C-alpha cells in the first residue's frame, strides 16, 4: 500500500491541490495500486504548493510544486529522487529546518480531522497536564510562559485569564477571535484547516482554567474552508465526549459577515450578540463585562492554539525562547511579492532583513525589495534602512511600527507609496464601524487630502494637514482601526518622501 499526503489547505487548493489529489486517486486506480490518500493541512511552504508527500521507510518525501499532469510521471518514477520535482524530506528543506515549530508542530503532518492522529502527535497532553495542575495552576503556568496575545495587541494571556478567573459570575465565556482580516496573515486559517483540535483543546483548557463552560469561535466568512473544517472537528470532538455537556465545555462556531472591524475584540463581541459590529468603549474590560455582559476571555486563535503545547512541555520550555518581553515563538507569515512565501514559526528576534532576504529569498519579481508592511493594513511600511529591526513587540514599537498578527508583506521598487498611504485611509473609510468621529470622518477627509497631494495640489500644506489629521486619528479614535491607520500613512510619508513630491497634474482636455 502507498500512503500519499496532499494538502487540503485553502491556499493549496487555490493552486490546484484538489486536482492533484484527484489525479493521484485516478492513477492509483489505473495501476491497481492500493492507495491511502490523506488530505493534510499545509506545511506552509506556499511557493512549493501543491506539495505532495509520500510515505517511505525513511520517512516522508516531498515533491512540489506538483500539477495534476505530473502525477502519472511521479508514479512511473516510483516517487524516486530522480524526478525533477523531488524535494527530499520536507523537514530538511532549509525553510522548514530553520523553524522552531510549537504552535504549528502538527500542521501539514496530521490528518486534521482525525482525533487519533491528533493524540498520536501529542494532542490532549496539555489538557491532562492542566487538570493535574488545577485551574489556578494552569493560569499560573500560562502566565509564566510569557505568552502574549498573538492578535497584535500583545497583552499577556495569563493576566487576562487571571482577571476572568477572579471575577465571580454565573456564566463566563471563552471567545476565540478567528476574524483574521489583516492582509498578509493566514496562520489562523492554517490552524483551523490543518490542526483544528489544537484550538479545541486550547479553548477547553482556557474554559477549565477560568471556569467557563461555553466557547465561541468567531470565524470570518471569507474562510469557507476553515468554517467547514472547524464545524466538522467540533462534531467529531463531541462524538468522542471531548466537548459537550459531559466534557463540561461546549464550543459553537459562529460566522462573521465581512466586517473587518469585527476583528477588534469588543466589536466582535457585539457581533456575536447579534448586533452591528461596533466598538465598545473600555472600560469595562471584556474580562469583567464581555459577551452578554459576562466575564469573557477573548483571545486570538494562535494564542489559544499554543496553550496546549505550553502546558504539555512546560512554561519554561516556551519562555526560554525569544527576546526581551517577547517570549516564545511567533508564526511569521511571509507574503506578497516574495520568492519563498510561507509560514515561518520562529523564536522572536529575527531581523526583518533576515525574514525578507534570507528566508523569503527576496522578491518574486527579482527587483529590489523597497518597502515591507508588517502587521497588516494598520502596520507601518518599513524601508530597507530599517531591515535591522528585530521581530519583537517592543523593537517594532520603538521604530513606530507594530508586528501585529505577524504578517509581512513585501513590495518591490515598482510600488507607489503615495498610493499605499491613500489605500490605508480608504480602507479605514470602508471598514470604519462609524462609532467614533475621527475614524468615521477623518478617514474620508484623509483620502480627499491625499488625492490632492497626489495631484500635486499644495502638496506640502496638504501633507501637513494629513499629519495633523493622523494625530487626531491616533489619539482620538476608540479602537485600533482609526488609531493605527496613521502607522501605514505616516511611515510611507516619512520613509518614502520622494513618492509624495508630485508635479501638478495638468487637467486633461477631453
Amino acid at each position, binding site marked *: 500500500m502507498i500512503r500519499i499526503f496532499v494538502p487540503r489547505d*485553502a491556499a493549496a487548493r487555490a493552486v490546484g491541490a484538489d486536482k492533484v489529489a484527484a489525479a493521484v486517486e485516478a492513477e492509483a486506480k489505473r495501476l491497481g495500486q492500493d492507495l491511502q490518500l490523506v488530505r493534510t493541512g499545509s506545511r506552509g511552504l506556499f511557493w512549493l504548493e501543491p506539495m505532495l508527500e509520500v510515505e517511505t521507510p525513511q520517512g516522508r518525501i516531498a515533491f512540489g510544486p506538483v500539477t495534476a499532469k505530473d502525477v502519472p510521471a511521479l508514479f512511473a518514477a516510483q516517487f524516486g529522487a530522480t524526478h525533477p520535482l523531488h524535494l527530499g524530506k520536507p523537514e530538511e528543506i532549509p525553510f522548514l529546518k530553520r523553524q522552531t515549530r510549537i504552535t504549528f508542530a502538527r500542521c501539514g503532518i496530521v490528518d486534521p480531522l482525525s482525533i487519533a492522529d491528533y493524540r498520536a502527535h501529542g494532542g490532549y497532553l496539555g489538557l491532562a497536564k492542566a487538570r493535574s495542575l488545577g485551574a489556578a495552576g494552569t493560569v499560573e503556568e500560562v502566565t509564566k510562559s510569557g505568552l502574549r496575545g498573538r492578535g497584535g495587541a500583545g497583552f499577556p494571556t495569563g493576566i487576562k485569564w487571571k482577571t476572568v478567573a477572579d471575577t465571580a459570575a454565573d456564566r463566563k465565556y471563552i471567545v476565540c477571535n478567528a476574524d483574521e*482580516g489583516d492582509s*498578509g496573515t493566514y496562520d489562523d486559517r492554517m490552524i483551523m484547516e490543518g490542526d483544528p483540535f489544537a484550538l479545541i483543546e486550547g479553548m477547553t483548557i482556557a474554559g477549565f482554567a477560568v471556569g467557563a463552560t461555553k466557547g465561541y469561535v468567531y470565524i470570518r466568512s471569507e474562510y469557507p474552508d476553515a468554517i467547514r473544517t472547524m464545524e466538522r472537528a467540533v462534531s467529531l470532538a463531541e462524538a468522542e465526549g471531548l466537548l459537550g455537556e459531559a466534557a463540561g465545555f461546549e464550543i459553537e462556531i459562529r*460566522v462573521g459577515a465581512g466586517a473587518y472591524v469585527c476583528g477588534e475584540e469588543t466589536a466582535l463581541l457585539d457581533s456575536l450578540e*447579534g448586533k452591528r459590529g461596533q466598538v465598545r468603549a473600555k472600560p469595562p474590560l471584556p474580562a469583567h463585562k464581555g459577551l452578554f455582559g459576562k466575564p469573557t476571555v477573548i483571545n486570538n486563535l494562535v494564542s489559544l492554539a499554543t496553550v496546549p503545547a505550553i502546558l504539555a512541555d512546560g512554561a519554561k520550555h516556551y519562555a526560554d525562547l525569544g527576546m526581551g518581553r517577547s517570549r516564545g515563538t511567533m508564526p511569521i*507569515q511571509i507574503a*506578497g511579492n516574495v520568492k519563498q512565501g510561507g509560514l515561518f514559526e520562529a523564536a522572536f528576534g529575527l531581523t526583518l532583513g533576515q525574514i525578507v532576504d534570507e528566508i523569503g529569498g527576496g522578491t518574486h519579481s527579482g527587483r529590489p525589495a523597497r518597502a515591507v508592511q508588517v502587521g497588516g493594513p494598520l502596520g507601518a511600511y518599513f524601508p530597507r534602512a530599517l531591515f535591522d529591526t528585530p521581530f519583537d513587540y517592543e523593537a517594532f514599537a520603538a521604530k513606530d511600527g507594530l508586528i501585529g498578527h505577524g504578517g509581512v508583506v513585501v513590495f518591490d521598487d515598482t510600488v507607489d507609496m503615495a498610493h499605499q498611504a491613500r489605500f490605508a485611509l480608504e480602507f479605514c473609510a470602508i471598514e470604519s464601524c462609524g462609532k467614533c468621529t475621527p475614524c468615521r470622518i477623518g478617514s474620508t477627509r484623509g483620502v480627499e487630502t491625499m488625492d490632492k497631494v497626489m495631484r500635486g495640489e499644495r502638496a506640502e500644506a496638504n501633507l501637513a494637514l494629513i499629519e495633523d489629521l493622523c494625530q487626531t486619528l491616533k489619539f482620538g479614535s476608540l479602537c485600533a482601526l482609526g488609531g493605527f491607520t496613521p502607522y501605514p500613512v505616516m511611515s510611507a510619508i516619512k520613509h518614502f518622501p520622494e513618492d509624495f513630491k508630485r508635479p501638478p497634474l495638468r487637467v486633461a482636455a477631453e
Partner: protein
Amino acid sequence: MSAAWNDAEATDIVRRHKSKEGALLPILHDLQAAFGCVSPAAIRLVAHELNLTRAEVHGVVSFYHDFREQPAGTHVLKVCRAEACQSMNGEKVAEAMLKRFGVNWGDTTPDGHLTVEATYCLGLCSCAPSAMLDGQPMARLTPESIDEIAREVGR
C-alpha cells in the same frame, strides 16, 4: 440556486436558531443562503420573531458587507484588493477582470450570470493575487486566469 421567498420556510429557519444566544447573524446567513438576499419581507419576519424593531434588523443587515438586499448573480466572484495582492499586480488583474466582464465593483452582469465583488483578504497572501469563485479559492492569478474564470461562468 436560491429559492423564491417562502414565509413558512423562512419561519422554520428563524425558529431553528431562535433559542441561540445572539441568534441574529446565524439567522441572516441562513436566510440569505436560502433566498439569495435579505429582503424587506425577511427583515419584517425576523423583527417579528426576535421581538426587535425593523430598524434594528435593518441596521444589522446594512452594517455587514456580506448581507445583500438584492440577490447576486448566478456566480459570485470575490476579488481580493488588499495589500498582499496589490504587491503582486493584483490591481491590474482586477481591472482587466472588470473590463472583461463589463462591470464595476459590486455589479452584476446584465444577463445575471456574474457578480464581481471586492474583498479585503482571503488569507491566500503567499499565493497572491487571489480571488474566490462561488466559495472556491483561486490564487497566483494572471491575466490568463480571467479566461478560465469566464469559461467557468459560461461567458
